């Protein structure tokens, strides 16, 4: 019975520090489950498996959870609240997001739209900005409190396959040991080398992965509140479209933290190769923009960084279920637009459910573990990604869309706002001619039709 088995396993206490790890010569340790990566996906999977009585080892290559991650970030609070009720009471989040804005940018101007409401400031919150170090630490601590063994500074070098079935992992030096398990959950993030090296997923493509650079800029809390027009403790997220990504489809954003702001920008890896510039150039474009520079003026840059996001969308999702192994989070390309933390956590939750069902039936075949894929399919994770599948394809096929139409929007707005010494009808004709000189009407209609088809699904 699962409950008896749980009792016999529990007393074994595991060494937590790398220094006291077992000698490589000893018989390999064995766990019910090994989770690779203490990110949102891995720590959530470890938490739920440990809570359900599995003997779980959580391996993280960084010196602490979150040490290897940067960029963004905001979480959709309600979706996490369903996994960890009132989680916002358990760790220091940065700000409660009450202002969401979209800025379409030209070199020197901006057309803006947004939504601001104090209603978003009540629990369960809409979005919260978080620093990864705090968020990852909280989540990993939950897994440990539930009984998982967390080992930091442990890099997994490869998964161990036996006749096509995953039976454990091999640690890189200095530990260099093999550790066995009935189930391995791969949650090693966007650049999932392990699955690729084991031949479980195809080689990652520079078309599907986007490279982002980020900069964290310190500003006093009151300065942030004044400049972004926020009540104390509340925050803004501004999505920047057009100019910051230098004519390529991509995204850029400003996230407000308590006493700093994060600026992020990225495009597909192959677009950098084609464009002849680097990720740092995108940040420079943002910081120099006349609408943005005043928001950041006087701020001191604390940290720079870069990371990839799998943005290939639904059709880029590799096979997630293998004999004895499940792929969760970014490693499985489970990202919707640039939102990945919530999807990662829910995929970790579903992986834990499938692992538990496999454990109770002592069947670790792909057929048994495919419960994972079923749960994903039935949830918002894959339903939202499926709904957006065509958007990802459109971005690939018409890479000029964001930039061109941001420029047209700014041109139209500029011309409309400006006063001209001509009658209103003539002015309308003039604006129309100017704007359509950027892109012929036929092409605008064709693009509009493509976008409409995607939006209508």
């Amino acid at each position: 019975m699962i409950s008896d088995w749980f009792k016999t396993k529990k007393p074994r206490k595991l060494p937590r520090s790398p220094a006291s790890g077992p000698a490589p010569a000893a018989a390999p340790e064995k766990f019910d489950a090994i989770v690779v990566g203490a990110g949102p996906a891995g720590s959530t999977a470890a938490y739920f498996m440990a809570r359900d009585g599995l003997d779980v080892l959580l391996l993280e290559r960084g010196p602490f959870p979150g040490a290897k991650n940067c960029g963004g970030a905001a979480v959709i609070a309600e979706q996490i609240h369903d996994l960890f009720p009132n989680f916002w009471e358990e760790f220091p989040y940065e700000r409660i997001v009450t202002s969401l804005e979209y800025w379409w940018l030209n070199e020197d101007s901006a057309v803006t739209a947004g939504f601001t409401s104090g209603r978003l400031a009540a629990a369960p919150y809409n979005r919260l900005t978080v620093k990864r170090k705090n968020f990852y630490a909280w989540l990993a601590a939950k897994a440990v409190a539930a009984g998982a063994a967390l080992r930091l500074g442990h890099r997994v070098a490869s998964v161990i396959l036996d006749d096509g079935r995953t039976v454990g992992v091999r640690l890189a030096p200095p530990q260099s040991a093999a550790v066995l398990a009935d189930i391995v959950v791969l949650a090693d993030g966007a650049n999932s080398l392990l699955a690729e090296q084991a031949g479980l997923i195809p080689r990652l493509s520079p078309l599907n992965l986007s490279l982002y650079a980020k900069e964290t800029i310190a500003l006093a809390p009151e300065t942030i509140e004044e400049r972004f027009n926020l009540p104390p403790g509340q925050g803004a997220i501004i999505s920047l479209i057009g100019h910051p990504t230098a004519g390529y489809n991509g995204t850029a954003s400003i996230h407000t933290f308590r006493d700093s702001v994060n600026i992020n920008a990225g495009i597909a890896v192959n677009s950098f190769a084609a464009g002849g510039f680097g990720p740092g150039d995108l940040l420079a474009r943002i910081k120099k923009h006349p609408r943005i520079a005043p928001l950041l003026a006087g701020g001191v840059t604390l940290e720079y960084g870069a990371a990839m996001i799998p943005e290939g969308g639904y059709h880029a999702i590799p096979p997630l279920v293998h004999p004895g192994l499940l792929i969760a989070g970014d490693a499985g390309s489970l990202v919707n637009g640039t939102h990945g933390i919530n999807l990662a956590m829910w995929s970790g939750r579903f992986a834990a459910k499938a692992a538990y069902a496999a454990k109770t039936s002592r069947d670790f075949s792909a057929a048994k573990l495919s419960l994972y894929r079923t749960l994903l399919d039935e949830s918002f994770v894959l339903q939202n990604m499926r709904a957006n599948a065509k958007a990802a394809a459109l971005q690939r096929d018409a890479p000029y869309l964001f930039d061109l139409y941001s420029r047209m929007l700014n041109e139209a707005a500029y011309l409309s706002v400006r006063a001209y010494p001509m009658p209103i009808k003539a002015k309308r004709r003039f604006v129309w001619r100017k704007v359509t000189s950027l892109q012929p009407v036929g092409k605008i209609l064709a693009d509009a039709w493509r976008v409409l088809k995607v939006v209508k699904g």
Partner: protein
Amino acid sequence: MTKPPGINIALCEFRPDDAWQHVVIAAPEKCRSCREKNCLRVCPSAVFQWDNIPDHPVLVRYRQCVECGACRLACPAGAVEFAYPRGGYGVVYHHG
């Protein structure tokens, strides 16, 4: 060799591993005939450096790598070999 704009790696904390280089150009002969030199542009922390002299090698300053993994995907010749640094080494982020 000029540093590309916007790259502020001086602000990052690195715990460099002097004993093992985790990103290498495994097939340097391919760089000689490589026209794109994508590695030079894509890398967000200027790890790859080259002095524009055709026969000179592309240098790999792996100690300042932020471990994004993009170089391996961007190199058209498949010449870059990337693995994460040994446990506990490499870049350490603190600010989100």
